[in-house]
């Protein structure tokens, strides 16, 4: 599903150059649930941004599905993000003046889906995350866990190939974190490929494979025995 070869990325700030990714080789098969771990500055967010086409690598190749991701202009990147990827952010990033339903429907709007069909699909995904009765509430009226579940529903709405979650539980308490992980595991069980960036070990243990990053290189990549979040809830 994801194929990365010899990925390099540097940031330039004035005269200083910061080499963040120093040659990453990494692949993810369909249906995997992978966590990317590392301390801050290890390059894990940069890697996720490149995977998410929010940022571009300096060197190396990246293939998503069977599409080579290179020489992207803004237009193509936006199109690919819309079709192939679903994002889950630490701070949820819901649009605060739109209801839960409208937030979930937004990726569908950019796919050109008609209004009625949008609402139906969005409602379906809200039901899936257990928030059907909250569909007309604004994000400000929802708890943190509920907001993240709306964000997950939004990420699922466009039926992407891969879900990218950047510290999805970073702003949540332990109990809520496990509820969100339970949901993510459930989605993975249905066959969706999911990448989770985290620095919390208990969250990483709930995935099927842990990739450890340090100073821009993968130092460890191993499958783990998945711990079901439902056991803790």
């Amino acid at each position, binding site marked *: 599903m994801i194929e990365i070869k010899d990925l390099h990325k540097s940031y330039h700030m004035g005269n200083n150059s910061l080499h963040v990714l120093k040659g990453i080789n990494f692949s993810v098969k369909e249906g995997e649930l992978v966590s990317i771990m590392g301390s801050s500055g290890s390059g894990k967010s940069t890697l996720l*941004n490149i995977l998410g086409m*929010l940022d571009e690598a300096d060197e190396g190749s990246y293939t998503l599905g069977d599409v080579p991701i290179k020489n992207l202009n803004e237009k193509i990147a*936006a199109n690919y993000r819309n079709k192939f990827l679903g*994002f889950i952010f630490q701070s949820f990033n819901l649009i605060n*003046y739109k209801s839960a339903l409208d937030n979930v429907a*937004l*990726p569908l709007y*950019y796919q050109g889906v008609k*209004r009625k069909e949008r609402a139906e699909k969005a409602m379906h995904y809200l039901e899936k995350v257990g928030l059907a009765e909250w569909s007309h509430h604004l994000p400000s009226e929802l708890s943190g866990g509920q907001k993240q579940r709306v964000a997950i529903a939004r990420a699922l709405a466009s039926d992407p190939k891969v879900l990218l979650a950047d510290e999805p539980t970073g702003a949540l308490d332990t109990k809520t974190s496990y509820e969100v992980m339970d949901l993510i595991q459930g989605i993975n069980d249905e066959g969706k490929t999911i990448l989770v960036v985290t620095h919390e070990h208990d969250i990483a243990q709930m995935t099927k494979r842990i990739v450890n990053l340090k100073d821009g290189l993968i130092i460890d990549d191993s499958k783990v025995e998945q711990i079901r979040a439902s056991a803790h809830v």
Partner: protein
Amino acid sequence: MFDLERWQEIFETLSKNKLRTFLTGLSVASGIFILVILLGFSTGIQNGVRSQFQRDATNLVSIWAGTTTKEYKGLNPGRRIQLKNADFNAISNKYADNIEHESSFYTIWGGLVNYKNESGNYRIQGILPGNQFIENADVSQGRFINISDVDGSKKVAVIGNKVSQDLFKGEDPINKNISLYGITFKVVGVFYDPGGERDESKVFLPLSTAQLAFNGADNIRNMMFTLKMADDFDQAVAESQAVSAAIETEIKLRQTVAPDDTNAVRVNNTLEEAKKIYSLVDTIAAVFWFVGIGTIIAGVVGVGNIMLIIVKERTKEIGIRKALGAQPWSIVGMILQESVFVTMFSGLFGLILGLGLLELVGPLIESDFIKYPQVDFNTAIATVFILVFAGALAGFIPAYRAAKIRPIVALRDE
């Protein structure tokens, strides 16, 4: 532009951000409102000044005589020039083609007028029938002085409305006898004058009668002519100037006055004066336009400013939209379409409000110098479109810049 989905998205955004929408709208609406009021009053002032000129004919040439100040052909300066009937007739015949109405005047400034026990001092003027048109006098009762009155030196009088009110106290003055310095005249008419009370405090007699009755011989005090107007205003002014200059030369020749003696014979051309006033009015209009355009520029800057703030405030939202797959141009388009819609709607609102106010207040204004303030609707609509266009242009730059921001920058957690 006509994508229904897009409009639904925009209406939703606008209705869920009421304060922002309201503030943008307010700055545009007030700009247009002020502009409409300004232009309205500019038109009002022009109308007012024009109507001030309607009290006398605007193409009027009047000739007065004074004393000479220059020696000429052996004649001393300080000589008093007396205009005669012959002077008037000569001019009248020579320029018959150019002259529309004409009258010469023999005037007693403060003449005593009696009717029964009532009396008053009024200007008594011997005139010719053409004076009715020169004064723009409106005969309300009876008739004006006619040519047979003049030819027969009849002892008839036409009195101003003020004189009629003072002496007759509501009594019908027609065919009643009034007495001027003991000489009896029959009132044959009453006139109104758009110039007001001062111009209605006059008694008109046939010129020949006045000259006979008050020892005037064939002397006249002054003469006035209205000239036929060419359709084109500048051409009319040029013709009028040429004729009045020719008349001046003619009179000076007849009276043996130095051609450059400006005091002995004075020729006054109201069209020339009118031209000055009209150019003043044009200047006023230009000033109002200047202020109006300034207001529009302020409005555009205001809208641009608000757009800048809006885009800044929405940076994160724009980042989210882009992460979810919005094309850069769809972001620019969304922001522009929103701003064009808001400026257009509120611009029209301000326009209607301004026009409504002018319509409502206009008739209530009682001033000689402001009449019928109004705005040419096309001009007003044009200004709304200019504002919308300029507002969109002002909003385009921040919108474009916002669309250029990469989502990771926009989404960075503070």
